[in-house]
């Protein structure tokens, strides 16, 4: 079974700072993976390397058999931490934009999700509240039938109801041919949705395991283990 994402000896340095070093990971299809670590541990850097926003200093990263580029961007759906929506479009415009550029965008599904949230298609992005913009962005990302979903801190700074909605959307959208990578430092909310977890500390992988192995093997939740490993 080919891994959708494979990186070997991945390294990224910014000036003097080593953001990532010696990262060897392999993510299989149909898994929901948690990329866990405190702020500054390299999670965002890793995700940006995956979606081609930055290039490695050393090592390789292979997505669906190719290095990050146009072809991988077509199968990777990325939800950044901040909103990337412009302010002149209406919701329907950004839907058409995604439909235009991404062959795997399911516009019908997007509209369905939008109406279930009570957001109108004719609303201008400029007038939406921050929370609503984030939901629109989530819809754009999840309405794509991508092979790899990269969600960078999807539930940080979001109210509990929205958090539930986001997790429920991730679960409902699950399909066996796709992989979801969720980077977060809020573990207790998300643990039950994950198959596998990766602990990142100071740019290095310090743990790679399934959630079940941690609970069975160590008799504690991932959240509890995390607190131990990253004790200040």
């Amino acid at each position, binding site marked *: 079974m080919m891994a959708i994402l494979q990186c070997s000896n991945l390294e990224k340095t910014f000036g003097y700072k080593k953001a990532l070093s010696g990262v060897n990971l392999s993510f299989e299809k149909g898994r929901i993976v948690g990329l866990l670590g405190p702020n500054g541990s390299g999670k965002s850097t890793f995700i940006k390397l995956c979606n081609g926003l930055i290039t490695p200093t050393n090592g390789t990263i292979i997505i669906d058999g190719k290095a990050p580029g146009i072809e991988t961007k077509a199968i990777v759906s990325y939800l950044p931490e901040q909103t990337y*929506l412009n302010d002149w479009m209406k919701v329907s415009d950004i839907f058409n934009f995604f439909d235009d550029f991404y062959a795997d965008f399911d516009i019908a599904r997007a509209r369905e999700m939008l109406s279930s949230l009570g957001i109108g298609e004719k609303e201008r992005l400029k007038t939406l509240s921050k929370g609503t913009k984030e939901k629109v962005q989530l819809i754009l990302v999840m309405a794509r039938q991508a092979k790899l979903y990269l969600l960078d801190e999807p539930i940080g700074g979001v109210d509990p109801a929205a958090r539930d909605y986001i997790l429920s959307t991730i679960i409902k959208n699950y399909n066996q041919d796709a992989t979801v990578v969720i980077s977060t430092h809020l573990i207790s909310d998300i643990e039950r949705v994950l198959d596998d977890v990766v602990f990142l500390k100071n740019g290095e992988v310090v743990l790679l395991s399934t959630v079940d192995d941690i609970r069975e093997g160590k008799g504690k939740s991932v959240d509890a283990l995390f607190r131990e490993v990253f004790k200040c």
Partner: protein
Amino acid sequence: MLGKLLKYEFKATGRVFLPMFGALLIISVINRLFSNLNFKIPSIIGKIISIILIVGIFALTLIITIQRFSKNLLGSEGYLMFTLPVRSDSLIWSKLITATVWNIVSMIVVLTAITIMALSDISIKFIFKSISEVLRFLNIRGGDIPLLGLETVIAIVLSLFAFILMLYACLALSMLVNKRRGLCAFAVFVIINVISQIITSLAATTGVLRGLYEYVAGLPIPRMFHAIFVIVFIIELIECVIFYVLTRFMLTRKLNLE
């Protein structure tokens, strides 16, 4: 993909330019009416408004050229644009083409507005007479005009490309710093201009190009103009290439979004 990018680029910018153009053209027609009907005071007010609009259009063109690059590519929208399945080259070209088109269109619109307001039978005849006198003085025949006209258009387009790409390079290079990027871009702009001044002065004073100058000056008139145009093309092309390469390098290998 470039086509799609162009479509959205024009959509995003058209909504700002077209109303301004429309307003200017309408005001010009109104002004023309005022002057034909001899309404003195409204005519003056109308002229002031049209001057403001004309200046506004030029300012807007520059601002939007810069903003479409800095905001859409280097700001938070960049997270969307650079994860689209398109090449960075396409992103640069879509902005460059759109900005050039709007620059040319605004020049045409402003000229049209001025023509509507100021042109009369007498002035048309005068302009034609002056132009044909100049051409005759310069020994340019009717047959030379199409080629010279084409060369002028190419020169305008190339110099717009070079200028806009220079702006893009300044903005792209400002990604080297994390804060005060506007200041950094301006600093780069100043540095680039200083360097090009130095290069120009050196070329002029050290006689490096003396041979070329004498050859060109010795040509008969239409050919001399053609030669000058070719030299201008080469210079602009070199600038275009340098700034394009700089911009592209920054966007592909040194991308540093906020």
